[in-house]
């Protein structure tokens, strides 16, 4: 079984600026992966490279073992992609937008598309331009899913949503994922709700991958260690220190465990939340812009 998405030393330069560099990773089938990073960190660049809207400056990226640039129709019919701000034709009606999907995709599931539109109560003859932002995002998602893809790539699908709409959207996404067994990658600059939805996480900052792994194992391998500042020399030879912060007379250190923790009485250990871990890595990338692939 080849990887859903596999990048080898992937890099993309715009003029003098590297938007993405030294990215090597592979995502296995059947996972829901959150692609997390601040705005401008390279998330969209990575997803657009994956679908061939951009070509790599160096390295390669493949979907199911083939390049989206060399075999666009073969690769693209297996990929449901929704670009950032979910572009659609504003002058088309909902029905015409679905017909667009049907005409251009051999694996199109018309029944599914119409059922989803009916379920959401979207009027078929309403113009796309007259729908709300959330409704447009739903249509864009339907267009991606009705292709019956093996992998769905969604760039900031919930960016413009209020918290309730975000939760509903992610729930429908989860249900669909379970129904179709498609792999899903969704990017987000906010961490809210992602933990409940995703199995894996890929943290990107400064154009480089900071952390990749299954959420469970990421949580299991990171700890907050809090103790007095004079004993700050926590055995960083054994454990990788991700970030440190002083709070009053204490120092909190986020570490990536590489062996069981052995600590004196003055130390206490806490399990970090996923958000804590991600923020720790983002902080590290900011203090140390070269970035290290975890």
């Amino acid at each position, binding site marked *: 079984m080849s990887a859903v998405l596999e990048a080898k030393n992937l890099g993309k330069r715009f003029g003098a600026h590297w938007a993405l560099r030294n990215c090597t990773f592979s995502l296995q089938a059947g996972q829901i992966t959150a692609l997390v990073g601040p705005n401008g960190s390279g998330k969209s660049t990575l997803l*657009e490279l994956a*679908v*061939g*809207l*951009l*070509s790599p400056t160096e390295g390669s990226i493949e979907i199911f073992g083939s390049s989206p*640039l060399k075999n*666009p*129709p073969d690769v*693209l*019919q297996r*990929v449901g*992609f929704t*670009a950032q*701000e979910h*572009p*659609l*034709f*504003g*002058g*088309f009606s909902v029905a*015409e937008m679905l*017909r*667009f*999907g049907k*005409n*251009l*995709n*051999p*694996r199109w599931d018309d029944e599914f598309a119409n059922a989803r539109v009916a379920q959401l109560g979207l009027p078929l003859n309403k113009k796309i331009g007259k729908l709300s932002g959330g409704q447009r995002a739903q249509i864009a998602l339907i*267009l991606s899913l009705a*292709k019956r893809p093996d992998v769905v790539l969604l760039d900031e699908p919930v960016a413009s949503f209020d918290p309730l709409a975000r939760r509903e959207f992610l729930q429908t996404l989860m249900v669909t994922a379970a129904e179709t067994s498609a792999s899903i990658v969704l990017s987000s600059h906010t961490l809210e709700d992602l933990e409940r939805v995703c199995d894996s996480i890929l943290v990107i900052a400064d154009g480089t991958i900071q952390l990749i792994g299954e959420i469970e194992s990421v949580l299991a391998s990171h700890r907050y260690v809090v103790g007095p500042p004079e004993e700050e020399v926590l055995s960083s030879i054994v454990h990788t220190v991700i970030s440190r912060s002083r709070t009053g007379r204490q120092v909190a250190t986020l570490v990536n465990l590489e062996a069981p923790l052995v600590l004196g009485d003055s130390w206490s250990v806490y399990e970090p939340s996923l958000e804590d871990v991600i923020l720790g890595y983002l902080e590290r990338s900011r203090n140390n812009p070269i970035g290290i692939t975890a």
Partner: protein
Amino acid sequence: MIWITWRQYRTEFLLVVGMLVAFAAYLIPTGLQGHDAFNSSGLGSCLSTDPFGCWDLKEPIQNAYDNSQRVTTWFIFFPGILGVILATPIVFEFDRRTYRLSWTQSISRDRWLWTKLGIALLALSAFAITFTMMMTWWFSPLDRLDPISHHHLESFAFKGAIPLSYAALAFASTLGIGALTKRSIVAALLGLVVFVTAQISFGAALRGSDQTVVIDETTRMVRDRFWEFQLIEAAIVLGISAVFIALAAWIVKLRMQ
């Protein structure tokens, strides 16, 4: 893809049809007046026997066209506007960034581009030829005065291959500049600038020499040279159009990645 292209072009097609209907509404009554003036003047039989003895008969025909030609001069912009209008639905895809939707369906960019170009250019040809036929009919009484009056220069840009080739130039330059800048307004304005510049510079360079020929040569020679000049000018203009199309295709295929 054909339905999608048709759907995306629907408004633009209707707009162009509307313009042609408006032109027809003006050209038919004034053209009929011109044709009537010609038929009732007896010029037809006079020209076939002794062309240079018919000077007195041409007066009513020229009178019939004097006022309306002030209006139809402006129709010279139609091929340019036609080209720009038919290029904008493709340029909109760059400007509104919907190419990210179109190019991630299960078809290649080549098919996307060439289907759109094929349908747009087919429609452009049909509209330009309709326009050319209307104008040729409208000008025909004046053109038949050839040996004794020189209207060839006035009607030259409305006849033959000229409207079609300049419409193609406006289309191609709007498309090429649109692919490059991804700005539809900039592309439309620069497309019109290219069209007007070409009309003025080629008008001076190529048709300027036409004038002296028209005045000096006999009727038959003028007709022969007419097509020669037509085809030289059309070939140059279509050649420049092809460069712009190639630029757009190159950007779509390779640079926009």
